[in-house]
């Protein structure tokens, strides 16, 4: 699920996923959203090519449009229509990705209809059966062995956007969805304000599938992927703690080693986590490139930590030309060039040491 206040990039995230998803079929449900956005998808998708089949993207996409000014009853139905279509393709043995933008509008439609039926309201006026309905919808996702002859395996992946009123995650739809969803990408208003997109808050977000895909990453990407990921998370978590101290005493009061951590996490944030959905090279970052980008950044981190430990000057290290090159990795579409940076980091630190 992707919850976030307005302007945090739910729709762009969903649309980007719809573009790049590694599935044969995409069902995109515009549930109570903007008409112009639907038109945007309608006009843009025929011009984009499916990364694998090279066919126009629209050929594998089903669009269900219930814009916000269309009847409420149809809005309630749109989610079911979409998931039923997805199941139809799943039963043929396809992998289907379903984007629901936004499930909050669906929940509100339930509330409105329930109110008109004069049912006893539950929390915030939502019907008492909201949790059941949400669970029943999300549980329709999954990987199945289809019945019947010639063996087929199909799957449905649901990515649901949630629009919590006032960006407050304690409201019923977010909370009830959290209970059934396996992955939580919390979009953060303050990140969006500084145009850090995708505005996924790395501290709050989580995925329950980390362990189940561990082996896949080992086989397909690299054996040390998980280590890199854990180390990055450790650094980012450390940053939050250090930021609190900085708020109290200012950055100058920190020891050199901790200042280095702050600088390194800044690189992780700006040069790795940040991605532009509108840049050709940056919009889709292949796993291999992701891996090497992270590897380069962490190699730099290790080198800096070592050098600082030996009493080197942090300022000097940050002025190394290789740092600017790390920042430009995103624009690079040649993975070899990124790999080469590792050697370059080693060389520049050696020469730095030689100077001292």
């Amino acid at each position: 699920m992707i919850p976030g206040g307005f302007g945090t990039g739910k729709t762009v995230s969903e649309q980007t996923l719809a573009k790049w998803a590694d599935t044969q079929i995409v069902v995109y449900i515009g549930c109570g959203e903007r008409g112009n956005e639907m038109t945007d998808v309608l006009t843009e998708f025929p011009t984009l090519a499916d990364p694998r089949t090279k066919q126009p993207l629209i050929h594998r996409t089903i669009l269900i449009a219930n814009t916000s000014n269309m009847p409420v009853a149809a809005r309630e139905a749109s989610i079911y229509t979409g998931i039923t279509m997805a199941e139809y393709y799943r039963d043929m043995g396809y992998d289907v990705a379903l984007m629901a933008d936004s499930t909050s509008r669906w929940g509100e439609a339930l509330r409105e209809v329930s109110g008109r039926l004069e049912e006893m309201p539950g929390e915030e006026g939502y019907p008492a059966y909201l949790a059941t309905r949400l669970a029943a919808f999300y549980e329709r996702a999954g990987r199945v062995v289809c019945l019947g002859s010639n063996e087929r395996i199909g799957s449905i992946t649901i990515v649901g956007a949630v629009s919590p009123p006032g960006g407050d995650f304690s409201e019923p739809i977010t909370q009830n969805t959290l209970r059934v969803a396996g992955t939580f990408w919390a979009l953060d208003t303050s990140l969006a304000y500084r145009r850090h997109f995708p505005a996924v808050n790395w501290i709050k977000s989580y995925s329950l599938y980390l362990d189940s895909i561990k082996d896949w990453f080992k086989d397909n990407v690299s054996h040390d992927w998980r280590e890199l990921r854990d180390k990055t998370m450790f650094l980012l978590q450390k940053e939050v703690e250090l930021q609190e101290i900085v708020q109290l005493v200012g950055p100058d009061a920190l020891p050199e080693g901790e200042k280095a951590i702050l600088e390194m996490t800044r690189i992780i944030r700006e040069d790795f986590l940040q991605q532009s959905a509108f840049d050709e090279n940056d919009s889709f970052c292949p796993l291999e490139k992701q891996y090497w980008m992270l590897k380069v950044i962490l190699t730099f981190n290790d080198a800096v930590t070592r050098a600082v430990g030996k009493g080197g000057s942090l300022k000097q290290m940050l002025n190394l030309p290789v740092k600017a090159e790390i920042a430009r990795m995103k624009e690079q579409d040649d993975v070899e060039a990124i790999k080469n940076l590792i050697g370059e980091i080693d060389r520049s630190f050696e020469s730095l040491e030689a100077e001292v």
Partner: protein
Amino acid sequence: MTSRALFTKEYKTINYVSGPLIFAENVKGVSFGETVKITLPTGEERTGQVLDISQELAVIQVFEGTSGIDNLDTRVRFTGEPPKVNVSFDMLGRVFDGVGNARDGGPNIISEESVDITGMPINPYARDKPTDFIQTGMSAIDGLNTLVRGQKLPIFSGSGLPANRLAAQIARQAKVLGAEESFAVVFAAMGITFKEASFFMNDFERTGALARVVFFMNLADDPTIERVATPRCALSVAEYLAYVHNLHVLVILTDMTNYCEALREISTAREEVPGRRGYPGYMYTDLASIYERAGRIKGKKGSITQIPILTMPDDDITHPVPDLTGYITEGQIVLNRDLYRRGVDPPIDALPCLSRLMNLGIGPDKTREDHRNVADQLYASYAYGRDLRRLVAIVGEEALTELDKKYLEFADEFEGRFISQGDEDRDIETSLGISWDLLSMLPEEELKRIRLDYIQKYHPIHKER
């Protein structure tokens, strides 16, 4: 043609009046949403709309208020038609009340057509993609949150902040580059004071735009319920001008907070289950039925661009009215009280502002190739500078590094030179020029959001060489 009965029935069966609603008993053959004429004992005629029907009762909301309606002699007549507004090209330059009657002392218009005020949802497939860049002459909008034709971009204001001046300035300066096309402004006032309304009128008069403006006035002392119909009437006229007479229409709706309060008043009178802060649960849908009427339609020349203005109660952006609006509209322009006090004019707080359609309206051929990158860079650097301000308040400026001091200075200059512009009408080149001047205050390697070749091409240092 639908067949219509040759006789009309009138009912004198009102048994209950509650706030803006009246309840009529034993009515037959009434349809949902139809218009109702109510004749008071004094002979005065009022208009209403059917909100609810059951076996015995029909609930009617009365647009002009319910005072004076009694349960003895007041007569109710069902017209069998949905609420309509008469439209005509001649409405330009005229002033109407909230439901479309002449208010300027002139005669009622001779209608070319009578249209249903609720309008119809536009099929996304029939919509045309908004792509025309509108130059508003405001750096904070053109540079950072570009407005395009067919967009709905609200202004989130607070009480006492100059949202009206900003809206009037946009209406005055807005133009599509390289095109001389006929435009019109439809102005819907909902519950604003006479002073505010006359400010707009004077401003349009001063700039000579008055003849191209249709005014719908529901002022603060006019009946509340009329307010629910006002934006819909205004938009029906706008649609007619745009899609029949091929005009590019700018619709200004002010103040949406008053509209939502009228909605709440009706909801409460109907004894509905309230949602957040007492506003009805269907407010999102209701607001959407107004905002979604902006746009362009394939095969039609005209367009509707909306600029709704709303007041955030207590400057709270999470209040239901701005919150739901933000979920429907394609971005928002947010005004900030601190900036206003510091003399930034217009006091646009860039950080929470957004224009979702910006990417469609900018880039080579429309504005300039580096536009997106520059806007992102300004945002990132300004946000960082603002964070530093908080830090400085605690630890003092001495504790900052050299680089951070530069960012701090950048944030001040950004507000002073880029956002603040007074009455100046800046073209997009000027706005981008100022942006590059400001960005050159920072070290070049800090400009991570800008592609290297653009830096080479536009950075003042490289330009001089």
